[in-house]
């Protein structure tokens, strides 16, 4: 039985090659590959904090343990320099490395399998023409038996379907382009679709909201709780710029996604936006009506400064007025001013994770680019005070009851 499984799980190595010369690749193919790598957000996972781009080593926290991303520069000894196009394609589509080892699905080959031959070829050309960087892989930190790679064959048998994207003739080419990118290379569902206990995306809950590195990726299907429903032009703007006046600023793992998207062709963003918005479906009239009110309020929030909210007896209200309102009611526009919290998905969303995260840890300054900065309150807000604040924010700005089990979420975040 075991022998049979091992035989099933066994994959052959692909012959190593001499690292190909960069000059052997077509320039326009490389440029196309660069756009595709940006769409795929490759650098976000394959770059360690303060490390060299694509040299790997970034820890990826999963419910099962920590996996370290690998070096995908063409370094012959520590990167993919000896990978042929065949080996690269197999890894992308089947989740097997050049040596024949199964890859953990933290590398989203369940999405990449949809990518076309032409695009995989361009990605290969792009990656093989990067600067080779010597950076040995960091060993994963997974408990037994999860560290036994052949077992991944079983996981694949249960959850993985190899195969290219098949166009849906019921939709136009823009929608299909969007679906191809969102489901494949851009692997939106890797974060935005909930996963089962074995870490596979739930097929029946596409874009129903998932988790990523201690952040929640909000539902972007019909369950979306966005105070103002997304439309295609807003989403396109958001993907291009990383923020939208009625939706706020991309933070957490979405921040590098939109940073990368800044360099991709507009037509691809149009396509992704069209597809995702169609998955979100048409909002109800009640939602639209509430949104119209919010939009009107937000557009009045203009010049200079506005008064802070009056102090109330409520502890949460007092904390809001004292600590939050000075930025969130300053009238300073997005993306650098604080958002009107009535527009914030963090307050209205299905999970409190991100709100708690942002209140506690803030949005620290990093680097020297224009970026929203927010101070964190972890060391000054007690659990009780934080709970009071969340209760107040949820009631005042979302008109909703507090989330279930917020205490646990606070505990987890601490």
């Amino acid at each position, binding site marked *: 039985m075991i022998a049979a499984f091992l035989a099933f799980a066994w994959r052959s190595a692909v012959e190593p090659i001499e690292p190909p010369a960069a000059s052997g690749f077509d320039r326009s193919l490389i440029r196309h590959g660069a756009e595709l790598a940006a769409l795929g957000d490759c650098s976000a996972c394959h770059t360690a904090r303060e490390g060299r781009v694509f040299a790997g080593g970034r820890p990826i926290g999963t419910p099962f343990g920590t996996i370290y991303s690998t070096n995908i520069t063409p370094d012959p000894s520590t990167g993919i320099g000896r990978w042929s196009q065949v080996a690269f394609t197999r890894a992308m589509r089947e989740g097997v490395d050049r040596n024949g080892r199964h890859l953990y699905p933290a590398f989203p080959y369940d999405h990449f399998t949809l990518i076309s031959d032409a695009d995989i070829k361009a990605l290969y050309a792009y990656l093989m023409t990067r600067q080779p960087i010597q950076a040995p892989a960091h060993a994963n930190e997974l408990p037994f038996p999860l560290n036994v790679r052949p077992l991944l064959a079983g996981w694949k048998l249960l959850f993985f379907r190899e195969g290219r994207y098949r166009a849906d003739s019921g939709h136009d080419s823009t929608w299909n382009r969007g679906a191809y990118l969102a489901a494949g290379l851009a692997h939106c569902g890797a974060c935005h679709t909930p996963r089962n206990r074995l870490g596979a995306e739930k097929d029946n809950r596409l874009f129903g909201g998932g988790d990523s590195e201690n952040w929640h990726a909000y539902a972007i299907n019909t369950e979306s709780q966005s105070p103002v429903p997304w439309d295609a032009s807003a989403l396109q703007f958001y993907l291009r710029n990383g923020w939208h006046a009625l939706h706020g600023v991309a933070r957490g793992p979405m921040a590098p996604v939109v940073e990368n998207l800044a360099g991709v062709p507009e037509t691809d963003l149009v396509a992704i936006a069209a597809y995702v918005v169609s998955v979100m479906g048409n909002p109800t009239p009640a939602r639209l009506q509430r949104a119209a009110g919010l939009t009107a309020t937000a557009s009045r929030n203009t*010049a200079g*400064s506005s*008064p802070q909210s009056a102090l109330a007896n409520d502890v949460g209200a007092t904390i809001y007025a004292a600590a939050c309102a000075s930025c969130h009611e300053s009238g300073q526009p997005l993306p650098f001013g604080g958002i009107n919290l009535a527009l914030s998905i963090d307050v209205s969303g299905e999970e409190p994770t991100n709100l708690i995260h942002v209140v506690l840890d803030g949005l620290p300054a990093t680097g020297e680019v224009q*970026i929203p900065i927010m101070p964190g309150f972890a060391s000054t807000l007690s659990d009780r005070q934080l709970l009071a604040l969340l209760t107040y924010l949820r009631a005042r700005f979302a008109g909703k009851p507090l989330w279930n089990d917020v205490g646990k979420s606070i505990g987890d975040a601490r």
Partner: protein
Amino acid sequence: MTALLPNDTASAHISRRAVLQGAGALIVSFTISPAASSQDKGRAKAAGTAVKLAGSLTNTPYLDAWIRIDADGSVTAFTGKAELGQGIKTALLQITAEELEVPLDHLTLITADTALTANEGYTAGSHSMQDSGTALRNAAAQAREILIGVAASRMNVPAAQLKAASGVVIAPSGARLSYGELVSPTLLHVQAQPVSKLKDPASFRVMNRSQPRIDIPGKVTGGSVYVQDMRLPGMLHARVVRPPSYGAQLAAVDSAAVERMPGVMSIVRDGNFLAVVAEREYQAIKAMRSLAAGSKWQEQSTLPKQAELAATLSGLPSQEFRIFEKPESSPPDAAATALEATYTRPYVAHASIGPSCAVAQLRDETLTVWTHTQGVYPDRQAIAEMLSLPPDRVHCIHVQGSGCYGHNGADDAAGDAALIASKMPGRPIRVQWMREQEFAWEPFGPAMVAKARASLDSSGRIADWEYGVWSNTHSMRPGPAGALLAGQHMALALPPPAPKPLPQPEGGGDRNAIPLYALPHAKVVHHFIPSMPLRVSALRSLGGYMNVFSIESFMDELALAAETDPVAFRLKHLDDPRAREVVTVAADRFGWSGRQKGGSGRGCGFGFARYKNLAAYCAIAMQLAVEHETGRIRVERIAAAVDTGQAVNPDGIRNQIEGGILQSMSWTLYEAVSFDDTRILCVDWSTYPILRFGSVPNSLDVHIVERPGQPFLGCGEASQGPASAALANAVADATGKRLRDLPLTAARLKAAIGV
């Protein structure tokens, strides 16, 4: 009152009268000749005297304007310059202690104060050591000789046999007379002589020794150091509601609710000037926010398109000044290689960490203003004019603030405090700007465009050089009341003064536009643009930063064309031996000749200039790495060499050079003021990012080339230009891409590198 300020800023609570009446004091009042506020206007002429005296003695020749000795032997030095964080107080004390032969810790220093000190104009242009340091050095030396002369007659010993040390004159017999015993009331009320008996540098015991700065202990222990820290009895806190944009008119203001807010004492409105005064600081802030929300302004769209800034600027009407022309040599040979390049820089903010602050009080018909201005006398003139007061009813006292780096909001804050205090007699009024006000209203360092063209002869030497620089003025400082925001915004609506180009040899937009290199054939033109779309004024090093960036970038472009090493190429065109030495020393200290070859994302660059072609010489070599995928630049190591003439406080010099380099890295890599057609958009550190610790180099070594006995050369602005060029040249070395538009952002570099 002593709790108010630490001892070293004692000027705030000593009146001239008190000084004059000091126990056993011997000085009498001195005459300060009329305003010779000079720095940015070039050297002032000696006032009414045919003899050229040393440094600021020219304008303030009486020794007792600089040095006072009390009967108890205590010594006070006076300077019209201000401590801006550059460490000038310590250096001036070192000079005085050295030449006067007194222990440094027996000395007190009084800085810029219109009632107490000489008018030395602005503390700017890296002039303090040349002006005030030179004056104090000569005054102290002459005072020492006067004291020795008195001792000689009292002891009946030839002066030549007497020696001064530690505040005592000593005879060969061992007989001693202390300075306190030797002074008499008018002893130092004499005009300085043209020649002083200065000490031989070999005998220095205080100068040219690194002296811990006297201001640092207070700054790191919570001392009351800054104007922001002042707390006068009965003091009220004011905040100004600034217009949302240049030229906005206050159409309506609803102040009724604000007047009822806790602690609110007064709402001041004078034309477009709107402010609120409250008992407590945070009450004032809350009231200001309410008042702002209740104010309606009519705004005008007056700003150019940011993306087209360079074209807009060079398209504005300009006045041409041919500041350098050297036509005598034969024209370049026909085989010459010709190069041409255009460089641009955006508006850059001073971006002081502490928003501007001032305290003012109108009492007994005198308005006292405590301010971090760079020029107490010009500020006094502006405030007096704004309030229609005689200048002698306005007393401006310098108190330290957050670093200003030129003309930031400090003078405007003083104007704000003065205007509010004039309407609330008796109460001291403290005004501090909010962060967004500092960014939106400070006068920026002007945006500039420079065009260079040169040809090389067949031996790889520059045969012909043409350079033009387009710029606004670099000084809109007070003096005139219209230079103050309060003056512009009040109902009187005082017009800003007409902008003027600052003349050569120091220059403004054309500062350092004339290369120090030996060029057979050269022409340099300053295109002065009077029209100012954004509010501008002096930012540290003025046009020097941009001109050195452009010239030194272009030198590397020429060196590349000549296939010559950049350092060798510079030396090939440098005759000045001191220039050659700093270049050579910086290159040696860096290991230039053995450096790693550029390319593959790592490179080295070099930059050199003599600030203003008159002050310190500075050469900088830099190594950096470029992340190919992002264009992000990481500076790894820097070596600098500097020649400041006679060094006074070597560690102070190093601190200034290091600071200049890091500040220049920040300007060069990251900074640009952003705006739309109406408003300034960068209003905080989110929108105006500056250098953070993650980007600080691993090492930065500053080597001082010693020049014992040579005149002091200011160094506070010597390193900014060379650092920017070294950076751009290292980027070109690393990537093969030449960036000519500042700032050299990762996005721009990535775009240049391509995939």
